[in-house]
């Protein structure tokens, strides 16, 4: 497989685009692999990529029931940031952000990572104090964070609703300048191509329908393309984790599946070159502008458990209200599309990258609605866990038994109710 370059874009532009290879193969499943990852979302693909690249394991398959990147990986609002506060999360998300900063080069694939800053609006002195605490804590682990006063904010984003009569007048913002957005599809394609180049078999239209066990070992996976055996198996199926868990007869999980919607407007001329977050008095809203000009935004989950991958109307109203309240200039802009994905909401809002009750089964799940930014580090640490059969200290507490041990990682302080995290 030949590397991509500006030169090749130029040459192919002159020669009718005939000089490109397939980005990845479409192989037949082998009967046995060293490692099989279930789920070709961003986490599964990144895991396979780092297993091959960092750990030299090449006999790997990623099995996917649909097409790669067709799940949440290709449905999200693409926000990347590392402004988390709790130990474990802080180091993890900062490592992820560092990987993002070099990802296009590493993959030889333009993931269009744009560090346009993540700007959370502040509406009260108490919120500003909370932001100062969070950002000071973050800076201890080397993440960047700034408090912006009203003047700085107005200089950066002049057209927000700064009216003193607003229901929640804006008094400033907290900003993470290194945060931003990336192109989600390109991340899936880049990791898929990078993994495939190292010999990983990506098996699409290959649904896992059963997990065969012999005592505490998984012996193989029944799939729609035949039985596949593996020495080690990793689940990275996001909102479908409980289904796979039941196939392995492992009982319950501290996870509920909920759906989250995303929205995109008709394309506009350049309007917003930051990610803006509005969260006060029950509102929860985030917005950015894509490179095609569409306003990309989202809000809360739909509040009731669902596997339907189909959003409901009250949230459309919610986000429209939030949009027009902070950016009244969007009032007459038309909504182009909205869609939804099934989220693996955990009991404390934090993920699991851990071993399981079965010797050769590993779990990657519980991403709530923040798993896009996590993809590089998630793949990195999950690959390390699978290869070395022990967790890196950074993910030592991202285990299923943390609730029994009383070490919940609850960024929001919302308590054990999955729908309240995110």
């Amino acid at each position: 497989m030949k590397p991509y370059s500006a030169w090749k874009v130029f040459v192919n532009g002159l020669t009718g685009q005939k000089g490109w290879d397939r980005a990845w193969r479409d192989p037949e499943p082998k009967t046995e692999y060293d490692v099989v990852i279930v789920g070709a979302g961003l986490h599964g693909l990144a895991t396979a990529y780092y297993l091959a690249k960092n750990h030299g394991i090449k006999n790997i398959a990623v099995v996917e029931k649909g097409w790669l990147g067709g799940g949440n990986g290709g449905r999200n609002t693409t926000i990347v940031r590392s402004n988390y506060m709790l130990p474990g999360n802080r180091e993890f998300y900062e490592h992820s952000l560092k990987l993002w900063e070099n990802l296009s080069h590493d993959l030889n694939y333009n993931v269009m990572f744009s560090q346009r800053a993540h700007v959370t609006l502040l509406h009260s002195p108490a919120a500003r104090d909370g932001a100062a605490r969070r950002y000071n804590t973050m800076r201890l682990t080397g993440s960047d964070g700034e408090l912006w006063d009203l003047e700085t904010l107005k200089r950066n984003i002049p057209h927000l609703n700064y009216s003193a009569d607003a229901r929640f007048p804006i008094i400033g913002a907290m900003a993470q300048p290194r945060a931003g957005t990336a192109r989600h599809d390109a991340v899936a394609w880049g990791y898929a191509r990078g993994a495939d180049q190292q010999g990983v078999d990506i098996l699409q239209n290959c649904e896992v329908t059963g997990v065969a066990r012999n005592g505490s070992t998984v012996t193989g996976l029944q799939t729609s393309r035949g039985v596949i055996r593996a020495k080690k198996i990793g689940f990275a199926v996001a909102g479908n984790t409980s289904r796979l868990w039941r196939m392995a007869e492992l009982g319950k999980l501290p996870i509920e599946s909920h759906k989250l919607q995303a929205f995109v407007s008709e394309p506009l001329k350049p309007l917003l070159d930051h990610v803006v977050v509005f969260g006060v008095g029950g509102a929860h809203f985030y917005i950015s502008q894509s490179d095609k000009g569409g306003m990309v935004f989202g809000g809360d989950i739909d509040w009731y458990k669902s596997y339907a991958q189909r959003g409901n109307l009250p949230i459309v109203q919610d986000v429209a209200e939030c949009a027009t309240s902070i950016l009244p200039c969007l009032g007459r802009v038309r909504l182009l599309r909205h869609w939804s994905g099934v989220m693996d909401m955990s009991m404390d809002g934090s993920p699991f990258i851990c071993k399981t009750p079965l010797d050769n089964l590993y779990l990657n799940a519980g991403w709530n609605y923040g798993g896009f930014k996590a993809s590089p580090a998630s793949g990195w640490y999950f690959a390390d866990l699978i290869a070395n059969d022990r967790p890196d200290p950074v993910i030592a507490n991202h285990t299923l038994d943390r609730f029994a041990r009383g070490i919940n990682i609850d960024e929001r302080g919302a308590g054990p109710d999955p729908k309240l995290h995110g």
Partner: protein
Amino acid sequence: MLRISCPFCGVRDHSEFSYGGDASVEYPALDASESEWVEAVFQRENLDGVQFETWQHIQGCRMWIVVERDTRSHAIHSVRPAHEGIARALNAEQDGVSAS
């Protein structure tokens, strides 16, 4: 919009209600073992299919109800008051028997 038939108020939009959670969870006695409590508070079946779940009619009668709903299609199969005693009384009344 889901339409939920509140046993007290009639059919209403789901946006009038607040979602509780899995109604099959049974909380153990206060002095039960820690592991029983961990199980009840944190562990979930997370069914893909028909489940019983609690909702509160927060912008109506404020009663808690149990809804039988398919989490794949959102189809609602039944609704009853969450409080067993009230459910019994309501049933009895519907059957024409005095609830007193």
